């Protein structure tokens, strides 16, 4: 649950093991060995899909997904509904029969944060995200999203896999499968969970589904060993590690000689060389201390509130820079008490205020940083939650409550970067922000558009599974050409 604690336990377990020999980490020796062979050059990690990528010329080479757990309120963030101010505390005709998750339809509630037009574009962003507001000209907001369910986890599955059920590959797994990565030194699909805990369902959220396990998201921790099994669980000296590698290669070569032309055997020999490269590259990329103080400050590492997410954003940028194809960052953990995600049933101000405070500055920093490095031109930034929240409160029918229920009918997400039209809003909900009514966008359309920007025809990214050529977009999906440059 708690990543930090998990890492500490992990280390503690390690100390309990018998030590084999004197100190020294294996990775160092392996790297030395590779240096001698001149093999430390990074090479691309090839895709597995048969249809060669890219399917068409496209600006985006990689993507980062900020995944908000619990449901961000659109009417308090990106979907300005001035009429709610007028209707504050009133009933709204036509929604008495609304079929909401907890079955309680209270009175309409206006945004708890003031909305303003921002930047040159004049995009509406509320004071919930004051830092993001400053980079509003980078954002492409979709205000007319709708989902198929208002149940968190199936909705989250659909957001990430296109399907409401367990067992389907997540977007990151699809991209790893379809695109490979720019580097073979790092996994193609990396996950950074919220420092407070994993999302509900844990690793199900970055599953490979029916794709091979290679494409599963790899969790990178911000403390302890960044990824599982990167280094030996017990200490092994550098000389032993080096001699072991030589012996392993000797045994494997001899074995191969009697079975010439076997690709699988040869591939395994090579995979040990790649493993050594990863041992070098992962700690390097995870070393946030290498960033300048001003950079760390930009991401908010110096403040308690923004420290966790700032660290995650900075780590994500370093991963993208090194050629990781897809980084998924979670804002929010599982559902429970006390709340550690965006599921503001009880109190909007407390909940969204706290959650936005954790991510606002780091996210703005990420966009600024990517822009400064020229990376925003070929990096796609996605900011979504599984659904939105109701414009009325979750309370008895004659009560103006403080919290809002789940809303699958209309909500907002934004994208930024690679080839999108920046500073624009697409689609619209009705006058109170309850239902998407204009240019309605389903997750399939969203996914199709994301793939399009990454050079993938969503109808061609397929994998055969039990009777059907499966796609991220099922048999649907329309590219939103109006938001693309």
């Amino acid at each position, binding site marked *: 649950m708690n990543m930090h604690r*998990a890492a500490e336990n992990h280390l503690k377990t390690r100390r309990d093991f018998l030590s084999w020999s004197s100190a020294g980490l294996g990775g160092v020796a392996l790297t030395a060995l590779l240096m001698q062979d001149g093999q430390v050059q990074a090479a691309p990690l090839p895709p597995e899909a048969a249809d060669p990528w890219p399917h068409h010329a496209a600006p985006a080479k990689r993507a980062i997904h900020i995944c908000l757990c619990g449901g961000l309120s659109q009417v308090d963030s990106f979907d300005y509904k001035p009429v709610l101010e007028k209707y504050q505390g009133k009933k709204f005709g036509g929604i008495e029969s609304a079929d909401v998750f907890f079955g309680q339809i209270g009175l309409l509630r206006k945004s708890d944060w003031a909305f303003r037009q921002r930047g040159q574009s004049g995009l509406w962003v509320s004071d919930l995200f004051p830092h993001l507001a400053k980079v509003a000209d980078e954002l492409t907001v979709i205000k007319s999203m709708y989902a198929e369910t208002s*149940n968190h*986890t199936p909705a989250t599955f659909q957001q990430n896999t296109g399907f409401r059920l367990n067992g389907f590959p997540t977007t990151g797994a699809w991209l790893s499968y379809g695109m490979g990565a720019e580097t073979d030194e790092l996994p193609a699909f990396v996950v950074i969970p919220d420092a407070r805990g994993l999302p509900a369902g844990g690793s199900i959220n970055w599953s490979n589904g029916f794709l091979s*396990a290679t494409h599963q998201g790899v969790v990178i921790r911000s403390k302890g060993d960044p990824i599982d099994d990167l280094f030996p*669980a017990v200490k092994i000296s550098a000389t032993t590690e080096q001699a072991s590698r030589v012996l392993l290669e000797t045994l*494997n070569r001899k074995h191969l000689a009697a079975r010439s032309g076997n690709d699988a055997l040869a591939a395994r020999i090579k*995979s040990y060389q790649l*493993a050594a490269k990863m041992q070098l590259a992962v700690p390097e990329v995870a070393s946030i201390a290498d960033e300048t103080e001003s950079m760390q400050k930009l991401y908010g590492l110096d403040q308690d509130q923004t420290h966790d997410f700032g660290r995650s954003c900075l780590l994500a940028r370093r991963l993208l820079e090194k050629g990781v194809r897809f980084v998924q960052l979670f804002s929010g953990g599982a559902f429970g*008490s006390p709340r550690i995600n965006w599921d503001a049933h009880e109190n909007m101000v407390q909940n969204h205020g706290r959650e936005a405070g954790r991510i606002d500055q780091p996210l703005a920093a990420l966009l600024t940083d990517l822009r400064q490095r020229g990376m925003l031109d070929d990096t796609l930034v996605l900011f979504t939650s599984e659904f939105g929240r109701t414009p009325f409160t979750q309370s008895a029918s004659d009560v103006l409550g403080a919290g809002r229920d789940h809303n699958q009918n209309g909500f907002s997400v934004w994208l930024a970067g690679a080839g999108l039209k920046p500073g624009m809003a697409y689609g619209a909900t009705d006058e109170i922000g309850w239902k998407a009514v204009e240019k309605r966008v389903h997750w399939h359309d969203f996914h199709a558009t994301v793939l399009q920007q990454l050079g993938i025809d969503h109808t061609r990214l397929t994998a055969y599974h039990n*009777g059907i050529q499966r796609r991220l977009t099922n048999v649907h999906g329309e590219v939103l050409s109006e938001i693309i440059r």
Partner: protein
Amino acid sequence: MRYSMRRTDSRFLFGCLFWSIAWTGVWLGAGPSAGAAETSNEDARFFNESVAPLLARRCLGCHNATEKEGGLDLSEQTAAAAGGDSGPALVGQDLGESNVWQRVSDDEMPPKHPLPQDEKEILKRWILSGAVWGDQRIDPFRWSTADRAGYDWWSLQPLQHAATPAPDKASEETLRWARNPIDHFIIRKLQHRGLAPSPEVDRRTLIRRLSFDLLGLPPTYEDVEQFAADRSPQAYERLVDRLLASPRYGERWARHWLDVVRFGESQGFERDQIRPNAWRYRDWVIQAFNHDLPYDAFARRQLAGDVLQPNDADAITATGFLVAGPYDSVGQMQQSVAMRAVVRQDELEDIVGAVGQTFLGLTVNCARCHDHKFDPILQKEYYQLTAALGGVRHGERPLMTPPMREQIAKLEQRRAELQNRIANLEQPVLAALRREHETDERGSGSTSAPRPFARWDFNNDLQDSIGKLHASARGAAKTENGRLILDGKTAFVVTPPIEKPLPSKTLEAWVQLAYLEQSGGGVLSVQSLDGQMFDAIVYAERQSRIWTVGSDGFRRTKDLQAASNEDLADRQLVHIAIVYHADGRIECYRNGRPYGAAYKSNGPAGFQPGGAQIVFGLRHGTVAGGNRMLAGQIDRAQVYDRALSAEEVAASFAASPFILPSNITARLSASQRTQRDNWRAAIVSHDQQIARLRNRKAYAVTPRAPETTHVLLRGNPASLGDVVSANGISSLGAEHSDFQLPADAPDAARRRELAAWIASPHNPLFARVMANRIWHYHFGVGIVDTPNDFGFNGGRPSHPELLDFLANRLIANDWSLKCLQRLIVTSAAYRQQTGGRPLALKRDAQNRLLWRREPHRMEAETLRDAMLAVAGMLNQQLGGPPYQDFKTSTFNSQFYEMIDPVGPAFHRRTIYRTWVRSGRSTLLDAFDCPDPSTMTPNRAVTTTPVQSLSLLNNAFVLRMAAAAATRVKAGAAEDAAAQVVAVFRLAYQRRPDEAELRAAAPFVEQHGLPAFCRIVFNSNEFLFID
């Protein structure tokens, strides 16, 4: 009875003639249809034989009754005659007026794929001769086309009894090579391609191959030596029999089956709670393989074991198959009825999909929203199957047999006698104490117990003995011996509205639970009249075995910190009180003492005078259901319109209507106490025995009366189509697919018929699919390389006659899997060498024709098991509850943190790990262990750097390397060379050669034996099986 009928449908006769070439995509024309109205008419015959197949194959994909491209439907005579948007389609004897001909002759239609000349001629001749129809309707599924499978699809045809082929130009060599009929099928195909099979492999390799294949474990070095030295011609056959009889065989082959059936031991979705009794199904599968349960019975029990053998705990356990997939507990509980219906349909899709793919190799689930796009399965038939499975629900099912039931009844009777004896013994003392107590209460001021505004002591039915809140019973609620009895299902009790606002209040109750493992039931609740807002004493809603301060949406609820687990309330009354202060503070008490930490809530709830009521037995709401119901008894309950102090709660508890046990004991004589202690001890022992019998549960089907099944238009639960009853799929044989059940048939009848229809020798897919699965696991690739899909999108059989031969053998040997496997592993095809030959590699690089043996990389489980075996650490305990290689914690969802636990209990075979859906192991995943939520008929085999890192560095691997080293040293191998020899024997089952010794021995001297064992575990020779 119906299943013994012979097929007479001409479709199958037609299929018999052509099925073996149908899959090549060549269309050869159709035989006469028995359903044709006027086959005597020459024109009609021409239509049925030549025109209808052409239209079906070339036109009906778009111009059918549902899609009607351009307004044209060519599937039916009148519709076709009506023409389309651009006018008449077919005008007899007039090519110019017939739009169909115009478009076809211009090569405009079919789009991009103009008709070949001979087909144009057929069309032309038909129109010129009057465009006469034979059958009035063309069944679009009747013929396979370039885009989809029809009824004539190869896998839907009856099994063929092909004679074992004799090799065409049988050289002496190949004849000598062949060992059983399988080999003749293999040779024939090879000879057609000018290839020869590979010779038999050496004995050391052979026993290693067979041992990993049948047992998933390496042979011992001694076994290898013995087999290599055995000159008997029957040595190999004896080895096969010995391994097939090993209990390790079931553990190996059950794992394959668990892959197919998406076996997971947690709920998945949001909460992913563990399923503590799911392992019983896993054990059932292991035992089924070990006992060679005939495959038809194996299938029937998994579909309907509880119905077919209701008194057999094993048969009930077998239905774990149907519910092995994920379960959306949150989705099932949500308020929205419409969304709950979607969740239920998703669940049924999972179940129908699993049944179809597992036993039929058909992706029936693809017909949920529309007719199957590729296979002849109607949408209606999908819903017929959901109807057949409509009574299936997930749950923990008690495994109760009549003898167990009798035993429980006897125990309960004896327990009641013991309780009576105790009651009789205590009665005089109790009566005296009650008298004193009542005197106290009447004499004002003589007791410090506070006075409530309402009290229910259930002595006078449901009357409020202080105020006017006289309650009324709902469902099975009743009073008995001064207690309110709640069954946890339908029973609850409500009062009229309370006229007070209750800004502060205290709820208290003396309650006993029917059992401790319940969750969420309400004891005493104040709720708004619509049940939406409530404050309640709730048992274990959020924390297992811990009382919950219940409230709507947990608004005023917090987990009670440091509250102890309830361990008494199933045996005696406990006193629970919750105090609500006007400022939102909440305190909870149990037996007069603070329970958990007090806290500040967002309260108080704003109950309106006249707008709230008291409810017993139901957490909140107006109807019974869900997890809100309490199973237990309430002796007394009281409500106060103010917040009691801790002292007052303690006083109320002390002044309990039920007398404190210590007060009774004080007045008993020593001998009475001894007597009572003995009886009590006997009661505890009885309770334990009863609990053991009662708690025997399996995660299995817990059937409910099926709801009416409708076809759902576009799969939408809100768009109801026709009502359907349970039935099969007619393309598998129309006369067998009709279950002849009414739409409201009970669950038992539905699943009984379903099981009979599926597990039948008349079902062409049932035996084929399983024979292919078995072959797939022995050779790494099936004769059909998509074992879950024998439809249009699946692979075509590399050796169709062999597949039918194997399927027939399976049936003929009373569905014995072991017989089939014996046949397969004793074939020469199985025993071939792995070496590549240039010509063969060029002609058949994929080895689909089996000219050699493909080396196999161990599966993840085999790898872990093999390391345990080599290290001498394998705990061979067969069956039982799983080990957990994780630490688990609950934060609404259950989380699993992977660890490497040490000790024999964790050194069992990998099949015995707890296969939770979100608790995936880095090591096992690196070696392609599948997501337990997805049906995996064939595993991927990948090679990645993460995999190499795992095998080099994982704590378990290093621990096993160290253990293997210790084992070798304990075996008295002292010098490095001897140690190397010993490790080679354990891991590779051979001695090292000189070069290997020269490389390894100095390494051991310098870096130690554990480091060497680590490298051996990482070596390809260990990981790959030739």
